[in-house]
Structures are given as C-alpha cells and as structure tokens.
C-alpha cells in the first residue's frame, strides 16, 4: 500500500512543481471553450438547442481530463529515458502496485486539471443546473480520469520513443476527443457517426458529466455509470497487463 501511496504522491509533486506546464496545458481547453462556446453560440441557439457554452463546457472539461490523463501515462516514456522507471521496476514491490500508484496519480492530476477548467467555465459564464449535483459531477470526472489514465499506462508501456507518442496522440487521443460528442449533440447523427460515437468510451463520460452538470443527457446516468465502471476495470487490467510485460 505504501508503495502505491509514494508513487501517487510523486505524480502529484511533479504536477505541482511544473507551474509552466499547468498553465500551458490549460491553454488549449480555454481556447476551445472561448472560441467554440462564443463563436458557435449564435448558430447553436438558432437551431433551437439553447446555449452552446452550457452545452460545450462539460465537453471541454472532459477533454482536459482525457488529455491530461493519457499524457500522464505516456510520460512514462520520460521515466524510461531518464531511467527512473528502472528504479521502481527492480524494487521488491509487485508491479501491479507500481502501476496503480502511477495510474492513480495521473488520474488525480487529471481531475485537478478538470476542476481548474470547471472554474474557468464558471468565470466564462457557465452555470450548472443544480449545485447539489456537483459531487456527482466529480464522481464522473474521476471515472473519466481513471479510464484514460489506465489507457495511458497501457500506451506508455508499449511505446518506446517519441514517434510512438505522436502516433498515439494523432490516431488515438484526438479521435477519442472529436468523436465523443464533446462538441456536438448525439441526436440525429448520420448512421456511421452514430455508431462510432457509441464505440468511444469518452462519449459516455461526456454524456454523464453533461447530465450531472446541466441536467441533460442522452443516455441514462445509471447506464453511463455502470458502463464507465466496466471500462475502467477493463482498461486497468489492460494497463496492468502491458505494464507487467515491460522489459528493460
């Protein structure tokens, strides 16, 4: 247990210490929020769908969590390069504990990032439907973070260099974001897109968060909750499997 804790703590320390990186990583979501939220707002309203800022804010929060958590897993590349990974892999600690410590640390950092963006959203004019549903929103944020931190750990265990990192970013993370319903409603989609969005785990995260924050969701919250939990367990197992196979 203490091994999980100390590795979790390390992820947090690294996060808190890299202030420049915190600011930098918030830049992109803020841009999405402002440019899309205000830029597409009038069109969205004319189509009879209400405020786009209200609609897109949960999507942007999910995006922040997605990027931050996958990235924390891939950051293992640096630990591999600078050798710290080896120090943990020869320690007399089961690999699963090392994997869990790292993954939970990455997920925690991602939730913090998501909360920061939530605050930015509030400043920009976003208003949650009920304050009482905030705890539920945090639960979903944590679930999204866990799902993708685990996926990040799996990726981080497989790829060995920066090219691999680019590959994952462009062909996994960006599609997961764009095809998730973070930016558009899930109703009346073309057939193909409708199918693809339903295969994307983030879809259910965004939908659940939207349900918790603005009271409008496509699927039922219970469905989202159970599906996300199953995916979290599946990805954690996948991450643990690939992490256990790392050879140095």
């Amino acid at each position: 247990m203490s091994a999980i804790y100390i590795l979790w703590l390390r992820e947090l320390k690294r996060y808190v210490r890299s202030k420049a990186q915190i600011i930098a990583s918030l830049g992109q979501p803020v841009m999405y929020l402002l440019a899309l939220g205000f830029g597409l707002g009038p069109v969205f309203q004319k189509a009879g769908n209400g405020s786009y800022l209200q609609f897109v804010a949960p999507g942007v929060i999910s995006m922040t969590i997605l990027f931050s958590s996958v990235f924390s897993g891939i950051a293992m590349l640096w630990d591999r390069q600078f050798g710290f990974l080896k120090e943990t892999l020869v320690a007399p600690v089961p690999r699963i504990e090392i994997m869990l410590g790292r993954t939970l640390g990455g997920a925690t950092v991602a939730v913090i990032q998501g909360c920061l963006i939530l605050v930015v959203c509030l400043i920009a004019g976003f208003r949650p439907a009920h304050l009482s549903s905030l705890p539920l929103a945090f639960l979903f944020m944590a679930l999204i973070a866990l799902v993708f931190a685990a996926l990040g750990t799996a990726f981080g265990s497989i790829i060995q260099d920066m090219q691999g990192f680019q590959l994952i970013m462009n062909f996994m993370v960006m599609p997961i974001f764009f095809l998730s319903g973070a930016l558009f409603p899930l109703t009346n989609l073309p057939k193909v897109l409708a199918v693809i969005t339903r295969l994307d785990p983030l879809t259910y995260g965004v939908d659940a968060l939207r349900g918790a924050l603005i009271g409008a969701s496509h699927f039922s919250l219970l469905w989202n909750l159970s599906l996300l939990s199953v995916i979290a367990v599946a990805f954690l197992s996948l991450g643990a499997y690939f992490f256990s196979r790392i050879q140095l």
Partner: protein
Amino acid sequence: MIRVQNLVKKFGEFNAVKDISFEVQKGEIFAFLGPNGAGKTTTIKMLTTLLTPTSGKIELDGLDPTHHRNEARQRFGIVFQDPSLDGEQTAYENMELHAVLYKVPRKLRAERIQRLLSLFELWDRKDDLVKTYSGGMKRRLEIARGFLHTPKILFLDEPTLGLDPQTRNQLWTHVKHLNETEQVTVFLTTHYMDEADRVAQRIAIIDHGGIVAQGTPQELKQQTNSDSLEQAFLALTGSTIRDEAATSTDQMRQVAKMWGNRR
C-alpha cells in the same frame, strides 16, 4: 553469497552469455570485467531479475531470483550503468521513495538517509532537485541510495563511467568503507583496470559471453606474465575492438523493439 552455474542467455540466435559459472563469497568485492558487448550487463540483468536466463542456475544469498523475485530484490541494491534517479524530486525525496519501496522501517529511515547522504557529502544539497546536480553528485546519490536498505549484495554496473579521478577515488573509498563496516558483498563492472586492481579481491574476465579467467588480481597477472591488470586483460581478451559488432546487434534489437517484438 552469489552462486552462478552454467548460466546461458540467448537473444534469438545470438548467444549473449554462454554457460558461465562463478561464485562470490560473502563480504567480498568481486569485479566482472570484459570488453564492450562481452555479456557483462546481460549477466547483471539476469542476476538482478531484469532478464530471465535461458538456462542455468543463479543463487543470491541462497535464493533463486527467477522464482523468488521480490525476496531476492530486497536483498540486493543496484546502481545501473545509466542513471535511474527522479530529476524532478529532491535528493532527500529520492532516498525516501527508495526507502518506502524497499520497506525500510520508518524509525530507521531518517537516520539512515542522513547518515548516507552525509557520508557521500550530499547532505547540504539534500533539498535541491536532482536535475540541478552534476554528474558526479548524481552518481554519489545513486550509490548512497543503493546502500539505503542495507542490502547484502550491491551491484555496481560501471559506476564510475565519465567521472573525474577525484570523484572516482572518493567513490571507491566510500564503497570500500561500507563494504567493511556493513559487510556488503560488492559485485562491480568497470572499464578502468586500475580501479578493479585496487578495489577488487577477486576478478572474473568475460569475453564473447564466456568467462576466460578468474582469480585474484595477482593470480591473473602471474597467469599472463604481466605487471599490470590492464596488460593481463589485453592478453586474455586480445586487442581487437568489439564496439561495432556490439552496436549493430543493439541496433537490431532496437528495430525489433520498435516493431513490437519485445524480447
């Protein structure tokens, strides 16, 4: 303390380690020497559970590291050829993390960290991030960390590579001191023959994956009629340079890795 019998490691067709056997006594400083690509690091990786041997037997303090991984790991410390510190944490935090991973009792932790950091003259800089350290300081920290959990065996894989003579000298003085006071068995590799001559009680020379000679530095010199260990080493391993062959296999392994053959 270490007993190796008929150890073999193959990477596909390539025989990295061919049937080697040796023993290291408790409290001994044992040097494992050989040209580049001779199989030193592969052997250390097998001894320290990072690689599984193709065949053969290893015993560390009576334990087989391939089966009792964590128990074996608890008993040794290792300083790798390349650094393995967390640059984003302070020296003290690096030590603390190691202490937690190796289950050093909480009461002992602070005291032992202070003792080792002071011994390796890092105590004044303990709260600085490791990324601000010089190469020599990082090495000292790594060796201090290797001793932290009072291991029975300390593996040092080319610990003095790229250090100036002053630092090297001081490092070995500390290692020798801890070897005597804490009865730690030390298993080291190095390319500096003078170091091995001065520090090691016994030496094994490995070449092309096999052990070509074993004995005290004195015995090796007598055996080859040389006055220095360096001469003895060259007499035993020849003077051809192996670098190129070694790197091309490394490159092959790199390519294989990239395509997902993770062996």
